[in-house]
């Protein structure tokens, strides 16, 4: 496996472009801060419908999409399915509540997620996924 220099890793991290999809303003602020702390840049969407529109209108391309599950207008499962139908290739990480049962998590994964993380999100939870993105 080719190794990357620290300089290359820092450059990649700085270019990391993340879409954060969540209806909770508190979560948006915290998740934006986490992405900034690891050197990425982020855009937010308040629900799944906005996330779909962002992709439809702007032809935007994100390295990573953090997708909340429970949202008004269009929830995380429906949004993920729609984005995959639109051939969005970004890594999509579902963000679930601990209250969600196994069946709910499986349904979310089957919608087209790459990974699922339980709230609350922390840097330590996200960094391994970022490393995976860099290695891809």
């Amino acid at each position, binding site marked *: 496996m080719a190794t990357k220099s620290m300089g290359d890793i820092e450059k990649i991290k700085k270019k990391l472009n993340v879409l954060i999809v969540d209806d*909770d*303003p*508190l*979560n948006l*602020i*915290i998740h934006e*801060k*986490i992405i900034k*702390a690891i050197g990425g840049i982020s855009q937010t969407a308040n629900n799944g419908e906005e996330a779909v529109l962002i992709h439809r209108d702007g032809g935007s391309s994100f390295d990573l999409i953090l997708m909340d599950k*429970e949202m008004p207008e269009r929830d995380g499962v429906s949004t993920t399915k729609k984005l995959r139908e639109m051939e969005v290739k970004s890594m999509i990480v579902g963000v679930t*509540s*601990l*209250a969600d049962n196994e069946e709910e998590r499986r349904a979310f994964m089957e919608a087209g997620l790459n990974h699922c993380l339980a*709230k*609350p999100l*922390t*840097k330590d939870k996200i960094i391994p996924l970022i490393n995976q993105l860099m290695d891809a």
Partner: protein
Amino acid sequence: MDALVAQLQMQYRNYTVSLYQQGFLDDQFTELKKLQDDASPDFVAEVLSLFFEDCVKLIGNMARALDQTGTVDFSQVGASVHQLKGSSSSVGAKRVKGLCVTFKEYCEANNYEGCVRCLQQVDIEYKALQTKLQDMFNLEKQIIQAGGKVPQVDIN
């Protein structure tokens, strides 16, 4: 001046540790503190301000939903409880989160008395946390005004 700073820093450390030991805060609060930096020195205070606004709004929603004459819509109450559980989890408000777990169970069981009790307790707990954190932030200000730095507190 140095003696004053040292005294305030010790007071701050002890007070912060007590908040964790008494169950007001958990590791997620520590994670929030780690995100605060020179570029955003008020990040934690801003996040908590949003959280307490959420508490006021959601507890108001729960109270109104439970105050309905006739049949109470427990799913409506439960929806607000679910949101508050999420918010409290995001900021590390451990006691509030724990109460929300119990509260949600009462909602699912359509237990009116249980819900009313939980509502009262959640109201008390978020206000208690707000007071405790205000005291903690005041200590931080005093340390800075005395010319010192707010120490990192190792909880473990």
